[in-house]
């Protein structure tokens, strides 16, 4: 059954804060094989004007994807997660995520459409710090592939 387009524009409540740890940033940078010293050394980060070590540009995805679970698992929307693949991904930064940030995500269903029997679901996550300042907006398109019968 196709997703109901009347869900476009629906927002979900802000998520409880995610506290970004220095060692989590180090672990993530190592996992993506990125040896940039700004991710691990405060002095190197300071040379670029960062008060704390910044996270790699794609790090916020992990936080926003957790927030997107509210939508993905929303029984009313009825997305069949076993058919879902990641179609595309965008980030728009006001500033990099940094160690010590306490980040909350507000998720919005930006678009729902059908293409070739596939359901396309675009989710926007606005990520804010504890002071309410915008940090980054992440937008992901999830594609629920058509079932065999279609």
């Amino acid at each position, binding site marked *: 059954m196709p997703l109901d387009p009347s869900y476009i524009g629906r927002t979900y409540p802000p998520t409880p804060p995610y506290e970004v740890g220095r060692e*989590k940033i180090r672990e993530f940078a190592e996992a*993506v094989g990125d040896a940039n*010293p700004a*991710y691990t050394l405060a002095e190197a980060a300071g040379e670029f004007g*960062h008060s704390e070590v910044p996270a790699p*540009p794609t790090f916020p*995805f992990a936080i926003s994807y957790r927030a997107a679970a509210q939508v993905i698992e929303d029984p009313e929307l009825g997305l069949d997660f076993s058919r879902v693949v990641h179609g595309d*991904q965008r980030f728009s930064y006001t500033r*990099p995520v940094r160690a010590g940030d306490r980040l909350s995500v507000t998720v919005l269903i930006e678009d729902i459409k059908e293409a070739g029997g596939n359901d396309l679901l675009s989710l926007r996550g606005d990520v804010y710090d504890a002071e309410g300042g915008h940090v980054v907006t992440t937008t992901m398109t999830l594609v629920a592939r058509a079932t065999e019968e279609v």
Partner: protein
Amino acid sequence: MAATVRYAEVEAGGQLPLLTVLVTREQLVRYAGASGDFNPIHWNERFAREVGLPNVIAHGMFTMASAIRAVTDWVGDPGAVLEYKARFTNPVVVPDDGRGAELQVSGKVAAKLDDEARTVRVDLTVTSAGQKVLGVTRAVVRLA
């Protein structure tokens, strides 16, 4: 790491240094742990084949994270990236053969966007085994 790229010294069409990334099963396991994405298609060959994949495939976000290194290695400051997007077009197949897969990332300055803000658009091309794995991969970057 004081390497900074000056807006005034960059021309549209200029190439970024090429980046080659080796992707091994160990790397994918590390990425699964660090990112929290434990989908078995990224580490369990039996499961991957059961759902019709040729083998274990890399996380799309791992590939996206690798590709932006071509930009952050070039400019130094990760905070210089203002926008970044990619489309996941083909999977990166990572065999358990002691070598894994190789990603080739090339980038060029597609356009100088704003002389005041010193921003440029960088277009990235990401291939593995001769096939494009990411589509429309673009970053907006603030230069010095």
